[in-house]
């Protein structure tokens, strides 16, 4: 089924194609100005409880939220990448959002690979899949930890932080850097240690997870909070609403079909559904990882001039780059980050919600402001 993902430079990206021009607009309800009794309450860009700097303008009657406008450009970063060669550009791209460093750099590399010549090595692709899945595990654990922390549910929060640290150390042990910096290039994935196991992660998460979803006080804060069931949503947000959207099944550049895994889904579309989907994804990612054999591999790619689009399923949904190369230099670069789409749906899900449900819902979307407030120059 063809679905719209979003705007990528001068194109509209679909799940199975790309079309030049604007994406079809969804008819939004007419904007109302200030109404009787309401006022605008600013949260951020510098406030407690926020992990990153983001400004939110909450239009409210008090407690009840009419509208929320998220401004991720309050701290706009201009990244000087145009005119740089691919390796130098890659160093900057993997630092846009360290948490999704693998997804960004692999989407960027995939875009270039698509219009280049040379032999691709499946083992290199498998290692890239390993990176993305490890990133997914770490991020999903982190999102669940943030949700637990918002509820003052500190025992599982600290248990999860401990588990995240364990994952980080394993990533560092394999790749030489816990955020995959300097790991990816066109022709190889750098591996330091090929003898790392993940069984303990699965075992320990299996101990924590049932306790989290059995806690009535905690899940009361999540159920029916931030319900969003929209066919234009992506990633865990879409899957929590029952949509089977996943770039791993749609974009075959990375050979995910070589592995046996399923796509977890839920039907509530609320923060609780998003938690369930993310937790189940941890187990599925571990399943994929268990099927990958760690070994050093190289490939030989000859970069052509041209333009290509690379897409991966980041922990928060579709992430795509549109890259144009000329004379071995990046001359145009556009990013479609999952957070830019999720921000829209978060804002939509907050309508008619209340202040106290805000942090849980915000965390459940797994939004990273750092990958939205960027401009390539």
């Amino acid at each position, binding site marked *: 089924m063809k679905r719209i993902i979003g705007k990528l430079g001068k194109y509209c990206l679909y799940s199975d194609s790309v079309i030049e021009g604007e994406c079809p607009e969804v008819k939004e309800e007419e904007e*109302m100005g200030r109404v009787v009794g309401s006022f605008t309450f600013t949260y951020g860009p510098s406030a407690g409880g926020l992990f990153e700097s983001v400004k939110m303008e909450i239009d409210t009657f008090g407690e009840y939220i009419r509208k929320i406008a998220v401004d991720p450009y309050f701290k706009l970063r201009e990244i000087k990448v145009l005119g740089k060669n691919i390796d130098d550009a890659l160093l900057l791209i993997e630092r846009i959002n360290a948490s999704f460093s693998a997804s960004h750099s692999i989407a960027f590399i995939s875009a270039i690979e698509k219009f280049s010549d040379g032999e691709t090595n499946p083992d290199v692709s498998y290692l890239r899949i390993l990176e993305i899945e490890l990133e997914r595990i770490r991020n999903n654990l982190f999102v669940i930890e943030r949700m637990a922390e918002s509820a003052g549910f500190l025992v599982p929060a600290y248990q999860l932080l401990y588990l995240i640290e364990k994952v980080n150390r394993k990533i560092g042990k394999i790749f030489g850097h816990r955020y995959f910096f300097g790991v990816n290039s066109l022709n190889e994935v750098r591996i330091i240690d090929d003898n790392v196991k993940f069984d303990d992660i699965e075992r320990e998460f299996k101990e924590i997870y049932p306790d989290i979803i059995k806690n009535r006080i905690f899940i009361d804060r999540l159920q029916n909070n931030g319900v969003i069931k929209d066919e234009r949503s992506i990633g865990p947000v879409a899957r929590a609403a029952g949509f089977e959207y996943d770039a791993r099944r749609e974009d075959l550049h990375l050979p995910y079909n070589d592995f046996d895994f399923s796509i977890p889904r839920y039907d509530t579309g609320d923060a609780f559904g998003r938690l369930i989907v993310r937790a189940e994804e941890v187990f599925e990612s571990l399943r994929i990882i268990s099927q990958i054999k760690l070994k050093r591999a190289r490939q030989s790619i000859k970069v052509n001039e041209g333009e290509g689009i690379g897409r991966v399923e980041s922990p928060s949904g579709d992430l795509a780059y549109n890259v144009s190369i000329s004379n071995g230099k990046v001359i145009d670069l556009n990013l479609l980050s999952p957070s830019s789409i999720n921000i829209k749906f978060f804002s939509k899900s907050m309508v008619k919600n209340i202040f106290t449900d805000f942090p849980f819902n915000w965390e459940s979307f797994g939004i990273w402001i750092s990958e939205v407030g960027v401009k390539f120059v």
Partner: protein
Amino acid sequence: MNLLIVYLGFIISALISIFNKKLGYTFSAIFSSIFIFYGVSVGNIFGYFYVIAGLVWLFSSIFSIFYDNYGRWLSPLFIISILGMSVAFTSNNYVSFLAGWEIMTIGSYAIIGLNKKIDYPAFTFMGFGELSTVLVLAGFLYAYNVTGNLEFTSLPTALPLIISTFGFMIKMGIFPFLVTEWLPIAHGNSPANASAILSASMTLVAIYGIVKMALLSPILPIFGYIIMSIGGFSVFFGALYAYVSNHVKGLPAFSTIENNGAILTSIGAYMILPNSTLGYFALHTVIVFAFAHSIAKTGIFLISGSVEGEDLDHIQSIRNKLGKIGGILLTSSMSGLLPNIGGVATWSLLQTLFMEAYAFHSFIPIIVGSIVAMGEGFATGAMIKFISFTQIFKGKEGRNVKLFVPFLVSLFVLFSGSLSYVFYPKIFIGGVQSLGVINGLLIFSKLSPTKIFGGISPLYVLFLIGIFSVITLAIFGKPKVRRTEVWNNGVKKVESYTAFAFANNIRMMLTKLLRTKIYLHSLETSADIFWEFMYRLSKKYVDFSRSLARSYMNSDIMWYMIYMIIAFIIVSILVVIL
């Protein structure tokens, strides 16, 4: 003192005010003062009511000199309403009481009707006012029937008390007739000076009526419990609706319901055990509460008269130090904080309820006490909201002559707390030498002449606050205030919280009770579900009677013939039988 002087004085004031408002109000203030002196000279429990009412009229009249720009008829009607109340207060028979009652009602109706934007508030006021009159009249008629006397004399049965109490309660806006109080004031756009006498002294006449009838009636504890429970619910609902009200006069009007509920609770406590020390204490609780409410509420309405506009979010107010100090003192008194008179009144009420629960091991006073306490919480919230949006945080700094009178009233409220000893008989006044409290400066609540339950010394509270403040100032000097720009998450824009938003947490929590309807661009609540219910019921009845009338009187000659034949047969049968 001859009361005719007072009556004539008010009549002359009303006549003068037609031609010269300021002079009319000045005369009204003078005769209100005379009425106060009359109250002091009476020397019985009713004298307190005269003093309270006189003070309300005095302050309202002085305020009106600076306030009234409502055309020619507000001033005479305002004074006529006062005249009606003075007649009702001082009557010694049913007829003159009712005459005063009606003069007061009609005068107020005319004020609401003349200053209208819409028709129905005045009609609503009159409708409920007359329903109240009918019940009071029925009670009085029954009393006359059993005693054969038009004077207020002892009654052998409690039925006149029961019937007339319900009549008086409607006038007080007591649950579920809250509409009598808030609607004419809020929707009728009643002027602030009129709102003050409607809320602070008209309801006082009703309280006076209940107390008067209760003192003449036999003991009926079960009725006391009923009255107490109704009072408790009125406290809760009055305070809740005050908290969610956004109307600059509607909020204090709902607050009046809450206070009337508290007074009614005290009356109920008195009725349960009238001939005991505890009952005697409860009766004086009624007086103190009535005093505290009437005076402070007058000040609050005068503050609402000092602002332009109706919606708390859109009013234009000129604020200054006088208004701030006045507002804080008045609202803290209304919130039951010492050393104000409101603090003494709230203490007195809660002591009464605790003592009844303790003495009888009864759960009703405990439940009522809990409901009252919940209501008081909302009342405090409502008062904070009112004063924040009228004086403390909003508006422009500047000179506002209208704020001087509420400031005076607030000082009166503060110091009358320390003078509240005069409201209690000697039996409840004492001292504790071991604690350094001089004899005569401690108010006791007592279960019996010898059994003390609790004690309070408002003068000492005021004195100690003053002393500690001076000591602190002497040691640490003037407070070092550092002013800094508001840190609003690091952005320049500074928003302001709306009055509507202030109470929205409760609107969201009590959705079912407040009938909160949430739409994307608006949020609606019912100001009063009881009124909503009554309104729907009346509408249904009107629709039913209209359809019945149309089917019954359907212009069909055949049906009229049938009616006449049936009527003829029935009449013939009745003639034969009888």
